[in-house]
């Protein structure tokens, strides 16, 4: 018994060949019939199946293929992995008019010309200035830093549509490139979940010290001055008075609310969520419903609910779970030795005072939202924490060291504190959230070699140029660096070259 139709045909053909000629004529008819049946069967098999109900969208579609549903998040229907996948899609999507992308401030300057209105949908200076998050955050993969071409002009969004013509788009002001906005490079988001967790823990420590000082002042009915510090980083002193007033005149490197804000180069954003909400509105013209309300088209572009709260959660979790940088020591003995010497020198000349090698993390569980989020960004009071992600569950990166006590040393090379960096880096003319021009958050050095150029505006194409531009609180370290013999400076550069993305 043949098991296969082809096998049956072979048997049949063999039999026909062996038949006497008289019998062959009738067999030829049979053969032709069989061939016909086989051909029909083959044809039937090759015919496409009948059309099913289509799920495709015809015509142009939004860049965001699927929004995350708030109810799915609240009901726990959607898993963290699914939410992160949605976040990744939104992060890489090219937003368009159907998403609600476009200039949210068009209404502030009148020009009914079709040509002008079309041009105003995008403005490289005052925004919206990008169609995709990954348009700038892309080195070496989405989520990373950006080339100089991807620089943003921070705070220029306060002008409706900059054209340098002193017109309504310029708010009738005489603007120059440097007085319109602060040009800043795009820095990577790698490892940002851990950075946010470190900042939360530091904030918690500072708030405990503050509360204790207030309680002591009230109990003793005298002013109480205490040193404030978190994770080994000093933030100066504060004085609490029995009447509850706090004197923060000697507080350094952190805002008056004593909340460590680890995002943006000025250190003015508390959380990935807060940063994301602002970035989506400023760079893409997409408004989060947690800012403007559900079903409200606040920017009058015909699209409401441009980003659901769940979308923002998805984007936040995607960024929080981006890969960690690594410390990539060379296999070459001479290079390795150079880097080790450089590491020693890095500490000797004082770089490590601000670029603190590691901060110790107690709990790697990332919860969302951040309890310290400001008004306008959902916090733990308005949105219960629904996802608890262990950011180090599958860690293989060399930037993490587990201690005997079960804590984690996160080698990010920052103290998450703001410092005065001196005149050379004081180029900005507009203060961002009260942070003065020469003052910057200590740059995380992890991964730095994978995202050149360097400094806040990307003007340094070499690490040596970046170090040489340091001043202010780093004046002595800069001088010590420049006074080193060339081989020692090269050693420090070799050490910094170990900070990469995998």
């Amino acid at each position, binding site marked *: 018994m043949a098991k296969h139709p082809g096998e049956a045909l072979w048997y049949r053909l063999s039999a026909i060949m062996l038949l006497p000629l008289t019998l062959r004529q009738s067999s030829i008819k049979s053969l032709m019939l069989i061939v016909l049946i086989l051909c029909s069967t083959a044809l039937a098999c090759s015919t496409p199946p009948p059309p099913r109900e289509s799920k495709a969208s015809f015509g142009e579609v939004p860049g965001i293929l699927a929004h995350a549903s708030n109810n799915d998040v609240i009901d726990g229907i959607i898993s963290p992995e699914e939410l992160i996948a949605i976040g990744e899609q939104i992060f890489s999507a090219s937003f368009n008019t159907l998403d609600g992308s476009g200039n949210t*401030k068009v*209404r*502030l*300057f*009148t020009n009914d010309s079709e040509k002008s209105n079309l041009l105003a949908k995008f403005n490289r200076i005052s925004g919206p200035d990008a169609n995709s998050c990954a348009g700038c955050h892309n080195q070496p993969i989405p989520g990373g830093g950006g080339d100089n071409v991807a620089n943003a002009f921070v705070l220029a969004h306060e002008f409706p549509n900059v054209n340098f013509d002193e017109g*309504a788009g310029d*708010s*009738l002001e005489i603007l120059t490139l440097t007085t319109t906005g602060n040009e800043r490079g795009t820095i990577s988001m790698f490892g940002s979940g851990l950075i946010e967790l470190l900042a939360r823990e530091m904030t918690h420590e500072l708030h405990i010290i503050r509360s204790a000082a207030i309680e002591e002042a009230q109990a003793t009915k*005298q*002013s109480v*001055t205490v040193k404030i510090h978190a994770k080994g980083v000093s933030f100066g*002193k504060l*004085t609490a*008075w029995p009447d*509850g*007033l*706090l*004197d*923060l*005149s*000697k*507080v350094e490197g952190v805002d*008056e*609310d004593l909340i460590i804000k680890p995002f943006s180069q000025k250190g003015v954003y508390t959380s990935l969520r807060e940063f994301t909400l602002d970035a989506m509105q400023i760079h893409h013209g997409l408004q989060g419903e947690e*800012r*403007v*309300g559900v079903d*409200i*088209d*606040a920017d*009058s572009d015909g699209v409401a609910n441009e980003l659901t709260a769940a979308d923002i959660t998805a984007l936040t979790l995607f960024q929080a779970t981006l890969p960690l940088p690594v410390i990539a020591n060379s296999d070459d003995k001479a290079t390795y030795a150079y880097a080790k010497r450089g590491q020693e020198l890095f500490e000797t000349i004082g770089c490590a005072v601000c670029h603190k090698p590691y901060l110790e993390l107690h709990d790697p569980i990332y919860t969302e939202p951040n309890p310290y989020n*400001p*008004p*306008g*960004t959902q916090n733990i009071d*308005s949105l219960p924490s629904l996802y608890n992600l262990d950011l180090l569950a599958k860690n293989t990166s060399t930037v993490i060291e587990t201690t005997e006590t079960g804590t984690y040393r996160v080698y990010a090379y920052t103290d998450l504190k703001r410092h*005065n960096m001196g005149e050379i880096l*004081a180029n900005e003319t507009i203060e961002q959230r*009260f942070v*003065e*021009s*020469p*003052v910057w958050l200590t740059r995380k050095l992890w991964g730095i070699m994978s995202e050149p150029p360097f400094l806040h505006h990307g003007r340094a194409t070499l690490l040596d140029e970046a170090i040489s531009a340091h001043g202010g609180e780093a004046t002595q370290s800069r001088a010590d660096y420049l006074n080193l013999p060339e081989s020692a400076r090269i050693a420090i550069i070799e050490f910094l070259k170990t900070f990469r993305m995998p």
Partner: protein
Amino acid sequence: MLKPKYTIAAIATIVGIALGSIPLSLMYSSQANEITLLQASETELVRTNQAMIRQIAESQVAEGEVDRLEAEMSRLLLKSASGGGVNMKMMPHPETGELSVEMAEVFSFDGNHAFCRVETNKEAFIMPTYKMGDVLIEKNEFFMAMSTTTIDEFKITTGTDGNNKLVMTGGLDCFTEVAKASMTLGSREVAEYASYKIEATDAGFGGGGAGDTFEFTVYFDESTAPINYAVFGPEFTFTGDMIDGEITIPEPR
């Protein structure tokens, strides 16, 4: 009697021992000196250490006293900081859309209070609101007043530009009213609570012309200040060109 040869051997042994003990005794003597020196050093070290402990304790007391005096001084500085004036802001014209309609914000502050007030608008303007789109405000329809209820924190510093700065934070009551013929949005009698941060800069005598500034940033939470949140959003800085007034902030000590 011992035989002479034994006597000689005994004497030789004694002499040998005596000779051999000379360097040993010299060594012991030397070590004894060292021990004495070490003991003296130890005594000195203990004494110095105790003196240092006393000095540290004294300096801690002194540091505490310095902290207390500095705190007193800082609070006095807060009491002597004050300012008032008018910030002029330009709002969009309802027909041209250009920022050409003047809106004067009157402000005042000292170590106990701060307020900012827009009594009315002399001309119609467009208010680009946070949640309600553009709202046409006709002449004399707009009123806004913010008055602090608490000052929780303050900070007096000299900025990197050399100007003295005062930062105050706390809570305030905000009254915003748009009184149109057909409806009234908000109220000038019922306040909404918000938190604030004030940054005032003293650039020397001469007010705004010299570089004085007054920025009143208010953080509206939608749950406690729904009207103001809808109008101004979660964070709004009330400021403008300081056309009148003076800000005085003493040098930090």
